[in-house]
């Protein structure tokens, strides 16, 4: 029997991979990190929720609708707001603030929409609902465990084929690599951008509606996932769609595995892993030439060593180490959101080009 947390890690990982893929697709074209991206996930959530509760349509079918709705909203946001702004030469930071503002606008819209659902259809759980039942079951686990990876694989393959085998895909790659040159060659760069925003938003909607089968959702669910999505995207290198897929799988998998693993009573293993990681990163930093990094390396290494001593002596006088070791339980959750953040920081420090930049040694020759 496969343990539950492994299955959960698979679902998490695939969903984050889908979301990170979409975010990267939009980032590649317009070079603006979209802070409102989480809201597209929420749109997917609510498309699935409404269709399931009011029309008894399965979230699998709803995911197609969600793809269209989220993608449409995303493309509209690009055409209606971001494109006019960037045409005016608005600096990057101001564009980021604009997407931040759009996110808050979405929060208001979701609020009104859920108020409407409550007032009109008497859906009391519209603000915060449990996962949608009715998923089929296969080999004793929920169907989404198989469907989500399958969808991810299919979409990745389709994107790969689009980029390498079709004329439009090649035009897309050209517009990403060098927009002015692509324009010179007669490629309608604007259309390419709109399509990539459409696809990017669509992936978020798709992931959101599959998400409802697995976990409870609410108006702020997507907004709260933004850390994991960014972390996945950055881990993948922010410049590569296929890197984002790997990044999402790593982030989603590790967040669930690490916290659940530690919560299951793997306290010593988990704390030991964190201590080892600290020592390794410390050793890595110690090799650096700048003094600040050396000091940080020494501090990190000392911290790891201290944690080992603390655990080995069994006195556990330190609250933090005690919390790490003592079965975590309620004490590990404070750091759950910290895991993707930590991975993001480490990725930015050690692997600024992302996972995709790692080449096998043989390829170097």
């Amino acid at each position, binding site marked *: 029997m496969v343990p539950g947390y492994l299955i959960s890690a698979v679902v998490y990982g695939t969903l984050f991979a889908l979301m990170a893929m979409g975010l990267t697709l939009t980032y590649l074209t317009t070079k603006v990190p979209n802070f409102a991206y989480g809201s597209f996930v929420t749109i997917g959530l609510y498309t699935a929720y409404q269709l399931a509760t009011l029309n008894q349509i399965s979230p699998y079918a709803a995911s197609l609708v969600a793809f269209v709705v989220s993608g449409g909203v995303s493309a509209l946001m690009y055409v209606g707001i971001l494109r006019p*702004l960037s045409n005016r030469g608005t600096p990057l*930071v101001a564009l980021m603030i604009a997407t931040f503002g759009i996110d*808050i606008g979405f929060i208001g819209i979701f609020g009104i929409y859920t*108020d409407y659902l409550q007032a009109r259809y008497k859906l009391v759980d519209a603000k915060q609902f449990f996962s949608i039942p009715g998923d089929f079951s296969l080999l004793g686990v929920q169907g989404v465990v198989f469907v989500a990876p399958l969808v991810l694989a299919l979409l990745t393959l389709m994107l790969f084929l689009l980029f390498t085998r079709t004329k439009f895909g090649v035009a897309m790659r050209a517009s990403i690599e060098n927009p002015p040159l692509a324009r010179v060659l007669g490629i309608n760069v604007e259309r390419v951008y709109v399509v990539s925003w459409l696809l990017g938003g669509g992936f978020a909607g798709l992931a959101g509606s599959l998400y409802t089968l697995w976990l409870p959702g609410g108006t702020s669910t997507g907004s*709260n996932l933004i850390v994991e999505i960014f972390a996945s995207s950055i881990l993948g290198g922010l410049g590569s769609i296929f890197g984002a897929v790997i990044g999402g799988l790593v982030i989603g998998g590790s967040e669930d595995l690490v916290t659940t693993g530690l919560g299951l009573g793997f306290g010593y293993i988990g704390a030991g892993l964190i201590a080892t990681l600290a020592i390794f990163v410390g050793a890595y930093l110690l090799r650096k030439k700048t003094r600040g990094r050396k000091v940080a390396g020494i501090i990190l290494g000392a911290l790891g060593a201290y944690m080992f001593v603390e655990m080995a002596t069994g006195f556990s006088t330190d609250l933090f180490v005690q919390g790490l070791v003592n079965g975590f339980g309620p004490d590990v959750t*404070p750091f*759950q*959101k910290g895991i993707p953040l930590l991975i993001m920081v480490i990725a930015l420090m050690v692997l600024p080009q992302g996972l995709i930049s790692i080449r096998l040694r043989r390829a170097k020759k």
Partner: protein
Amino acid sequence: MGLPQLVFFGVDFVSFGLGFLNFYALYLAISLSLNLEFGFAGIPNFGKVMFIAGGAAFAGSISGRVAAYVFGVGANQDFIIFNTQIISAVDAKLVTNPVFTVELVLLSILVAAGIGALLGYLSSYPAIRLREDYLGMLLLGSGAFFQVFLRTYSPLIGGAQNISVPDPYAYWSSLGTGYRDLVAALVVSAFAILVFLYAERVARSPLGRTMKAVRDNEDASRALGKDDAVIRRNILIISSAIAGMAGAIFTFYIASAEYDIWTRFAWTFWPFLIVIVGGAGNNVGVALGTFFFTLILKGLQQIQPYAQPYVFFDVNWLQDILFATLLIAILLLRPDGILKERPTPTLSKSKVSAMVNAVMSRGGGRQTEPEKISPLGLVRNKLKRLGRRREKSETAGPP
């Protein structure tokens, strides 16, 4: 017994004004600190909430513990579990100990400033090295993490339980309604004025001009010998310390330490909106922007009960949509904000005109009134003259 009322159109303008002032001064301080890092130094701090919440949480946590220790209250009890009893006992003693109250508040604000500065120092590490987009994502993520951390890590402020904070205004609230708000407004206004004076001083100082130089052209300023990394780090530490202090003052005002108020919308987006509306890099503009923002927010709160019966949804949602629209509209129509960023004169206007008069009267022989030139123009002329003199001395060669 309370403050006198001043009712027009069913609104008590005294209590409205006090609520307005409390909010205005708090957000003025926060927005000015954001303006220092974003407007002057060009660091997009999308994790502003973290620094404010950090200061608030630590001040809220430490003040209660220190007061309980000093008064010998609840020595053998868990501070978090018996929080309500301990704090109400502390409050009762604080009323009769004004000196200690002030000391406690000052100590907590100092701790909050330290926490803010520490967080600022930590975030300066990526802020120096990363591009704006990576940095924005990282800081936004850190802010979100910090909120989850506060919610789930109970030893600090009780996690999801929320704890009470000793009420330094307890004496004033015993006098009657309104006095507490009045004194709190005075305190936060004094703080905001100090921050404003400091921000203006920075703007006029060489540091302010260097920050703008680093923001506008990093390479050029580096070539001129300015260490952009140190400047960015210092300004992050300073403005984060201000944010931490603002958080501490706010937590004393609401007399509780809560996790769920620290959303990135209210504490990161709103200050950004204010700075954008007012004009980035212009402190007076930010003060104006805060005023308009507060006016809209408080005005909507007044209208809300009248509008609510007519719609099926919570009217407050419209506020979010309105702010989003306002931001986009400002960015589209007036990207520089209400007041544009201007070159800051190094001397005050009166000093410049005094110098001008001195120069003019020394000019000798000329009896006519000196023509009116703006102080800035005069400075420019003066600089030109200086440049010419230097040229002359250079061409003259060594004696």
